[in-house]
């Protein structure tokens, strides 16, 4: 009986749905996290009677075919790239990106990763690094004796040094944008890698067309909305239950058939 397998596919789909929702909820307080959504598609249909085929020798045709579907499958898990709210942190090395773009990070392997989590710090050499110690790209070094670090909206990093009246420019933060941001490959640790679907990165100065502006002393909160996640969780759970009801009903029908000959 196909209903059994169809309902099982529905249960599997809802299981994935709950996985995605729980990951969103778990990352509610992750800086720069973008929520995800599972998208479903129906499976193949079996044509029991094809519409438009002849139903008699006199040329009559079947007006509507009999097509029986075989369930559901996960189509995609999208990342919803809506801007997260910016929250004040008062850490001069925290930068939130308002608008499109990613900070570029050099991984230990030499590859470039991309992140929206702008909670940076400096390492022992004064270089700007992510909280995991990966270097920001292009590299910016805050010189010794620097008193105050200012990161402008356009990414210019200036420091005030004791004994100097003019602030000194020590670097320029650049952002990378992608043709298809949703195609970036998440690799954990708030980092993303370029993929075949994302297209090549285009770098640019923050604030120019196509790139967001930087906001110092702020971090971008995750864009997970607790209420809608919980609602989605309830819906997914009920859908899971409904599918299991189908399984037990189909099972009872089979057992009825089995009891025919006693």
């Amino acid at each position, binding site marked *: *009986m*196909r*209903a059994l397998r*169809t*309902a099982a*596919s*529905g249960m599997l*789909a809802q299981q994935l*749905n709950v996985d995605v929702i729980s990951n969103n909820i778990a990352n509610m307080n992750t800086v720069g996290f973008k929520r995800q*959504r599972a*998208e*479903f*598609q*129906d499976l*193949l*249909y079996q044509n*029991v*009677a*094809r*519409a*438009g085929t002849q139903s008699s020798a006199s040329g009559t045709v079947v*007006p*509507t*075919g*009999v*097509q*029986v*579907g*075989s*369930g*559901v499958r996960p*189509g*995609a898990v*999208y990342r*919803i790239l*809506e801007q997260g709210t910016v929250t004040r942190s008062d850490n001069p090395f925290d930068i939130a990106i308002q608008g499109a773009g990613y900070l570029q990070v050099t991984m230990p392997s030499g590859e470039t990763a991309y992140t929206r989590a702008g909670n940076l710090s400096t390492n022992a050499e004064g270089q700007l690094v992510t909280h995991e110690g990966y270097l920001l790209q292009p590299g910016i070094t805050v010189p010794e004796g620097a008193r105050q670090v200012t990161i402008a909206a356009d990414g210019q990093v200036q420091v005030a040094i004791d004994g100097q009246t003019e602030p000194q420019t020590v670097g320029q933060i650049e952002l990378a*944008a*992608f*043709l*298809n941001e*949703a195609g970036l490959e998440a690799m954990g640790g708030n980092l993303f890698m370029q993929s*075949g679907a994302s*297209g090549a990165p*285009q770098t640019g100065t923050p604030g120019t067309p*196509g790139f967001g502006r930087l906001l110092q002393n702020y971090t971008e909160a995750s864009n997970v909305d607790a209420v809608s996640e919980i609602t989605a969780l309830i*819906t997914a759970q*009920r*859908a899971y239950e*409904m*599918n299991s*009801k*189908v399984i037990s*009903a*189909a099972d*009872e*029908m089979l057992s*009825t058939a089995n*009891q*025919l*000959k006693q």
Partner: protein
Amino acid sequence: MDNIAYVALSRQTTLRREMDVIANNIANADTTGFKVESLMVETAPVAPAATMDAPNPVNFVTNAGITRDFGQGALQQTSRPVDLALEGDGFFMVEIQPGTYRFTRNGAFNTDESGRLVTSEGHPVLDANYNAISMNPAAGPPTVSEDGTIFQGATQVARLAVVRFPVTRNLTKVSDNYYGHPPNEPPVPAEDARVRQGMREASNVRPIVEITNMIEVQRVYERVSRIVDTTEDLSRRAVERLGEVKG
């Protein structure tokens, strides 16, 4: 006597198929743009197996077809600029192979690595002239007006093909939320459909209706098999009694 078992069997076969259809509806209760389906059955008069005292013809049950309720699904806000939902009668148009078109109500689109608007399968979504839609990634997220015109800033990029079919019953489902249609019935522009940006159309499966149908199917199945049981019982007793008379 055999007629009873055969008529019951024909009903049970359609009931099982109905159960499959209901299971598919419930499995797709969360599939974007899915339209609920139901099985129609009809009587099929045939000559009975034995004509002695049976009604002639005997009415068997057979499937007549699948109907799809193309009623509007609820719109849910998603905040993704390339999530488009249709309100009213209409379909988006997708090219799965050069010259082969599919139609869908699932407007959860994406842009691919070259900036084209594509479905989650990667098939290009078409504009009103049946061309793929390319967006300029540097020009920011698109704005889509109700009539399906895509803008980026003040620049008009394309106008989405939103089409409808005068006769929807000839549409066939081909998985992945796509519908196919017979080539001799070309689609016409859908004037009444409105495109809603940042929304998705939920499936129009109503859980209570489906569960109710499911219970009904299950109970009818049980009743029909009771008929088979009774028939079986009758013929067994007939054999017993006849045996007694002879002895």
